């Protein structure tokens, strides 16, 4: 059986700029696939080519073994980064309009429940809050009971509470066996939701795998954090970096590192140990902060 979505040597040039520069990957059915990368890395261009919105300069995209076509448009649900809707119509009317566009549809009641739309169902779409708007756009993406759902930075600009609510919605979609393609700025989001990720920079893939496998592969160490004020005048000879008021010490052997610190007379009262995150991985791979 061919992979659910198969991408081979995809290239997209814009007036001489290589936005996407020869990438290949496969997405399996029922998985949540994440594309990570800084602004300008080529995430949105890539995802728009997968959605059939943007034509590749060269390379191929196969959906269940066939080029993107009529069947794909019927079976794909898409949530763009920014979408304007028809003004002056309500959430309910918007959903009804999209239902009439597709041959197969999710019942309205199911959409209302799964995306928690009850409280603003009859409100003009221009008068929604950020979180409400994202929930409605998700409902539109689900209106055709899609096999695959594309979410392009769905929680950018939401407050933490709204973001957490949105993650729960995505989890419940995952549980129903849908395939999800997600781009995001937020490593925590990718870590929580994605089964597989690729990290892109300058139009190329620089890392690929499950989040945990990627971390294990790139980082043997854990991070010890101590308040900078707890250190004596001279620092011990250890691999260290400053992070705000904290000193971060990288360690692959926790016991010996702690012994060294006690020998130097460093107080361990404020010690915290954390695992390396995708954020660290990103910094290590690209030398850049992700969220800039």
């Amino acid at each position, binding site marked *: 059986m061919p992979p659910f979505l198969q991408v081979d040597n995809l290239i997209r040039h814009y007036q001489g700029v290589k936005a996407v520069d020869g990438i290949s990957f496969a997405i399996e059915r029922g998985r949540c696939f994440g594309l990570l990368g800084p602004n300008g890395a080529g995430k949105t261009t890539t995802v728009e080519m997968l*959605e*059939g*919105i943007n034509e590749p300069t060269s390379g191929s995209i196969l959906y269940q073994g066939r080029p993107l076509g*009529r069947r794909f*448009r*019927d079976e*794909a649900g*898409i949530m*763009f980064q*920014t*979408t*304007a*809707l*028809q*003004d*002056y*119509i309500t959430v309910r*009317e*918007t959903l*009804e*309009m*999209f239902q*009439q*566009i*597709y*041959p197969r549809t999710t019942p309205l009641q199911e959409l209302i429940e799964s995306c928690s739309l009850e409280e603003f169902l009859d409100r003009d779409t221009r008068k929604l809050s950020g979180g409400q708007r994202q929930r409605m756009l998700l409902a539109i993406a689900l209106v055709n009971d899609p096999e695959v759902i594309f979410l392009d930075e769905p929680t950018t600009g939401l407050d933490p509470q709204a973001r957490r609510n949105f993650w729960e919605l995505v989890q419940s979609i995952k549980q129903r066996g849908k395939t999800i393609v997600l781009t995001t700025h937020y490593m925590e989001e990718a870590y929580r939701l994605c089964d597989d990720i690729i990290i892109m920079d300058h139009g190329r893939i620089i890392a690929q795998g499950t989040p945990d496998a990627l971390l294990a592969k790139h980082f043997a160490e854990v991070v010890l954090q101590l308040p900078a004020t707890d250190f004596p005048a001279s620092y011990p000879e250890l691999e260290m970096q400053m992070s705000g008021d904290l000193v971060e010490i990288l360690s692959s052997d926790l016991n010996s590192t702690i012994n060294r610190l006690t020998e130097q007379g460093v107080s361990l009262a404020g010690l915290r140990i954390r695992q390396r995150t995708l954020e660290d991985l990103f910094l290590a791979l690209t030398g850049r902060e992700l969220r800039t």
Partner: protein
Amino acid sequence: MSFRRFLAIMRARNKEFWRDRAALAWNFIFPIMVIGGFAVAFSGDGPDLYKVGITAAQSSQNLHFEEIKYIQFIPVTDLSAAITKVERHQLDMLISPATQQFWINDSSPAGYLLERLLNGSDAGFKREAVTGEGIRYVDWLISGILAMNLMFSALFGVGFVIVRYRKNGMLKRLKATPVTAFEFISAQVVSRLWLLLSVSALVFFLTDLVLDFRMYGSYFDLLIVFALGAICLISLGLLIAARLASEELAGGLLNAISWPMMFLSGVWFSLEGVNPWLVKLAQILPLTHVIDGARAIMIDGAGLMDIWPNLMALMVMTAVFLLIAARTFRWE
């Protein structure tokens, strides 16, 4: 082409139009205000001057009549057209020195006075009486105002709106669905056509209740002219909107098209007597053909056969605009 998808898009667009109170009010109130304003402004005692049409004399000798002050003499070449103007009170009198004839309208007080003056100064003219109701400026203006409203609503309601949809990403959203460009565009056209015709009909009948327009032709013929005109102007709007993504540029272009039409297509004043070059230029403007056709129906009682050159011109322009628009249309 799926009729269901076409209907879905069209219904949403109709709702948007009827619920956008500000734009809706503008569509109704603007033409009513203009028509009402001109009806009041031109309802006074008429011009200070008497207007007399005069055909070229064979001898160079002038009539004593022509020496009277406060009469404006207008040279006339087409006698039958001038007689029609007397019937409509656009000329108070018409004199033909060559044939020693004069024409006046029996229901015109000015004609009565001028007849007395002429008989006092030059004897021997034969009296030819015509009849006919006067045409007020508003009778003449109504076709122009309705057509102008049609033009603005068609150009901006389709052209500008599609550019806005493209800029704000709504077209991109629809491109990601099974909706085709043809379904989307025809939904916009039919929605706007239906709205334009219903708004025009309402404005017409509301103002008619008060002003009682001269309407000698058939309402069906008038509807045909306005429908063809609306389709033509909507197509022009589509042409402008085919691939622009800047609202400012689209707005500028739409203004650059609509303003010359407003002045050269005879909305406010007749182009008779202006530079022939301008009259020729006006022929390439769709609005000219809508207004000429509608005026001929309302004022002269013309039928569709009488105005076929105008109808043909509108249909040819529509075909050209649509062809180019379809070739150049882009979702993004």
